[in-house]
Every structure is written in C-alpha cells, then in structure tokens.
C-alpha cells in the first residue's frame, strides 16, 4: 500500500510517501508564487527518490492552508486531524499535539486512538506563529537559524512586552538601545512566542504527553522556552515540519484500505 501526504503550508510545502505506513521519502520546497506548481514538483521529487511513479500511488491526501491547490490529491483532510494522526502515530502516549507553523499555530487534544477531542487555533495574528520570530530576527539583525543557538547562551531572562509583531519590533530596538545582549534579546523573543502558545495550550488543559511539531519545532530556542513555560518535557519527533504531511499520508492509507473493502 503506497500513499502520499501533501502539506501545502503558507510558506513551505512538504510531501511524504509511505509504504505500509513506513516512510519511503520526504520532499520539501517553498510555496512561492505558484503553490500548485511547487507542490507538483515536490510530489515528483518525492516519488523519484522512492523510485516510484504517480500511478503507483493508491491514494494521496492533501492538507495545509493551500490544500485545495494540491495536484493529484484524491481527498483532503484538516490540518488538525493530520496533526492528531501524526502525533499519536509517532508517540502513542501523546494526548496533546502542538503545531507551530510559519503563519498559524494549533493545539489539538486527542484520545488514545488519536481521535481529536478539542482544539485551539491562532491564524489571525502573526505574533502567535513563526512569522513573529522571523520579523524579530530581522529587527535584531540575526539570521533565523542562528536565533535558537544564540538564545541558549542567554544568562538571564529579559522580556519584551510584545504580543504584536509591529510593537515587538519597537521593543527589540529599545532593548538594543539599552545595550541588552543579542543572546538575551533572542531568548526574550522566544519567551514571548512561547507565552502565546502556552496560553493557547492551557485553554485545552496541559495533558501529557505533549508533542511539538511544525517548522518552528526545529528551533531549539523555541523548544526550550515552551518547555519552561509549560513546565513539561516536550516530545519533538525527527522531521517535525513533516508531521502534517505524515498525518495526511497515514490518513491516505486508512482511506485506501476502506475503499478496497
């Protein structure tokens, strides 16, 4: 049983190919101006890596904010369901899955079967997603990938009073003027985003095990800040940014099976 999961996010597109629920290949690319074309290339890339053709796919499922643009998709699934499926597949004890992407953040509460019980979403405010870190890194003149390691060097917590990207930029500039070190400012930035995400999770109740996925989960600085805020150890899988695509591909498998019956 060969299936594909395609996650068409606001910033990047992720594709996962599965054979009997085991990952054969992964492919990622920027959404750019033409997400449909980008997704096509990502799917072809993933198939090529797995030595497969489009006709080998039994079923493919699309998810993500541009899911309706996905090429060759047999069906779609909500990002929440894809997250729940992937989180409980990777960590069977997972009861809460947090997904922090470029422009959205979600938290899903689920039961032991991976069925969603409740959720919270932020999709209206850049201060509650990866876009916040990107904008603050620009203000701080630090490369995005250096922000996390830099923040871990902070010796103490300083704080920015920002729950808005626009005001956050001014806060970062005033900290620079106060001669605060870049490490401390980087930590303050991660703490500010973690505060937002933590308050979202707390609306569901903090139910361990808690899994963190999405592109921002690759950032060690954010993972450290969020663990501190929630006072729990967060489970972060390998390839956390592919969780949505993995969930979609797993759902594709079960849909293909039920279609066969």
């Amino acid at each position: 049983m060969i299936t594909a999961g395609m996650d068409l996010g606001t910033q990047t597109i992720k594709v996962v190919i599965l054979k009997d629920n085991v990952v054969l290949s992964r492919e990622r690319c920027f959404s750019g101006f033409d997400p449909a074309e980008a997704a096509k290339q990502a799917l072809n890339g993933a198939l090529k890596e797995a030595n497969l053709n489009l006709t080998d796919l039994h079923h493919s499922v699309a998810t993500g904010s541009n899911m309706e643009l996905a090429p060759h998709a047999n069906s779609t699934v909500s990002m929440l369901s894809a997250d729940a499926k992937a989180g409980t597949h990777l960590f069977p004890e997972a009861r809460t899955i947090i997904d922090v992407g470029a422009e959205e953040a979600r938290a899903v509460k689920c039961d032991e079967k991976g069925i969603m019980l409740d959720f919270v979403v932020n999709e209206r405010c850049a201060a509650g997603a990866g876009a916040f870190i990107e904008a603050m890194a620009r203000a701080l003149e630090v490369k995005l990938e250096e922000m996390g390691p830099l923040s871990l060097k902070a010796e103490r917590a300083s704080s920015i009073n920002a729950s808005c990207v626009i005001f956050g930029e001014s806060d970062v500039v005033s900290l620079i003027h106060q001669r605060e070190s870049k490490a401390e400012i980087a930590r303050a930035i991660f703490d500010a985003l973690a505060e937002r995400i933590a308050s979202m999770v707390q609306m569901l109740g903090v139910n361990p095990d808690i899994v963190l996925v999405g592109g921002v989960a690759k950032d060690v600085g954010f993972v450290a800040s969020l663990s501190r805020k929630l006072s729990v150890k967060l489970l972060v899988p390998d390839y956390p940014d592919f969780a949505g695509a993995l969930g979609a591909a797993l759902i594709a498998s079960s849909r293909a099976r039920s279609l066969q019956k």
Partner: protein
Amino acid sequence: MTEIDAPSGEKIEFWRWREYHRVLTGNGWTSKDTITAGVDVGSVSSKASIMVNGQAYSWGVTRTGSNSPDSAKKALGLALDGTGLQVSDLKYIVGTGYGRVNVPMANKAITEIACHAKGANYIWGSSVRTVLDVGGQDIKAIRVDEAGRVVSFLMNDKCAAGTGRGMEVFADLLKIPVEEIGETSLKVVEEPPPVSCTCVAFAKTEAIGLLRKGWSKEKVLAAYTRAMAVRMANLIYSLGLEKELVITGGQSKNIGIVTRIEAALGVKCLPMPNWKDHGLDPMVAGAFGAALFAKALYEKSRKINGG
C-alpha cells in the same frame, strides 16, 4: 497655527507627521486666573494643553521620543510657547496617557480613559455617549454620561491593527505621507473588499501581493483602511452603540477611517471641530480632560487648605 517642519533627512519618512502648537487668540490670562495644564504622553504622540479657568487656551502636539519625561516637557513647552506663561504659572498639572507615571512636572496622574471621556464632553458637549479613542497603540470604546464620566469601556491593546502605529507602517509601505492617507484611501471609484486579515504583519504581506497583482496604492489603502474600520466598528458594537458618537485620538484626523466607521455603523459622528482654524483639536482630547481634572483638583486642594 505654527507648524514645525520635520527635520530634513536623506530618506523620506512617510510616517512622520508634523508637530505643531496653537494658541487661541482673543483669550488672555491674569495671575488671578486658575491656570492648569494636562499632559498626555501617548505611545506615538505627546499632547499638552493649557486651560484658563477651565477654557482651552493653548496646546502642543509632539512625537513621543524614547524618553517619556522629555516628551512630556517638549509637549508642555510647545503649549506654553507664545502664551507668555511659565511652568511656574501653572497651578496644577495632571499627567495622562501611556507614559503618565513619567510626567515629572505633574501633580497627579489620571488614566487616559477618564481624560478622553472628559475631553470629548468638553469638545462636543453633553450629548456625547460613545467615545472611540484611536491612539497610537490601542483602541478604546468608552461609554460616557452627560457629565463626561466613564460608565464603561472596552479596549483592544497590544495589537497594532487600526492603531496610529499600524497606519504609519502602511504609510511607509505605500510611500504616502501619513497625513494624506485618509484622503488617499477615499480616491477609489469603488470600495474594494477589505483585506482578509487585520493583523498588520499579515495585512502588509497581503498588500504587497495586491500591489504585485496591479492594484493601485489607493485601492490597497482603501482595502486596509476598511478592514481596520470594521474592526473598530465591532469594538463599538461590543460596547453597545449609543448616540452621539465621537472619535478622538490621532486617527480622528484620518477621514478614510472616520468615513468607513460611519458607513459600517450606519451612524454619523458629531461634526469634527475645525481644529486647523479656531476649533478644538480632537487629538488633544485627553490633554483637555487632564487640564479640566487639574482645575477640579486644584480647587479641591484650595478648599481643604482653606484658601
């Protein structure tokens, strides 16, 4: 009105608005008068007003710098300019606004909500029931009674959507001087649909996309301004719309916002005073309110001291 030109720089700063001060001619003062001041240190602008026996005499408006005490001094200095008054002539000073605890010359600090309510009552009279104060970093909808007392309020803070700061971001993005964005946003044949998300960071990305699609600057600004106006109208709805409605704060001068709030609510605001000529300035409402509180506090202290 004296206008102070922005310092000339190599880069045009579209967000930068002109600082100014004004003395109402025909009014004067003697040492027997109760002369009070209100200093409103906002996040984006600082305003000061001087009142003689509870009547507005002069005011000054300046950009808030990195240091609240300096901004307060600068605003008060502008208000004193051309009046012949010294700080020592002021019997009582009330500080208000975001930086109110950092107004060094103030005898007392009072919240900007109370001051805007009082100031709106002073500018437009006792028929005002709803005050929308659109400031640099937050938006407040305030229900007031016939005496200008606060009955209830709602605020949206820590989000730049619709605030003066958000407008400055768009002025910079579209390269339109911030003082002209209201007029410019109305130069569209047909009102476009609002941008889909009010978050200024996302709206900025969306606006860049619309410009690439070939939308004119005017159309993009109209779409953004409309989204912001709808947001403010919703805040008023949540508080409950009760006439008469007035708008204070820097955005009261943004005709694009005012027109669209009126359209969204289906209600006209009370007419804007001609602040460029001889009328009272709605951006200074908080400082007017503060100066009126200063007068009341001064008179109370005289009674207590038997004066």
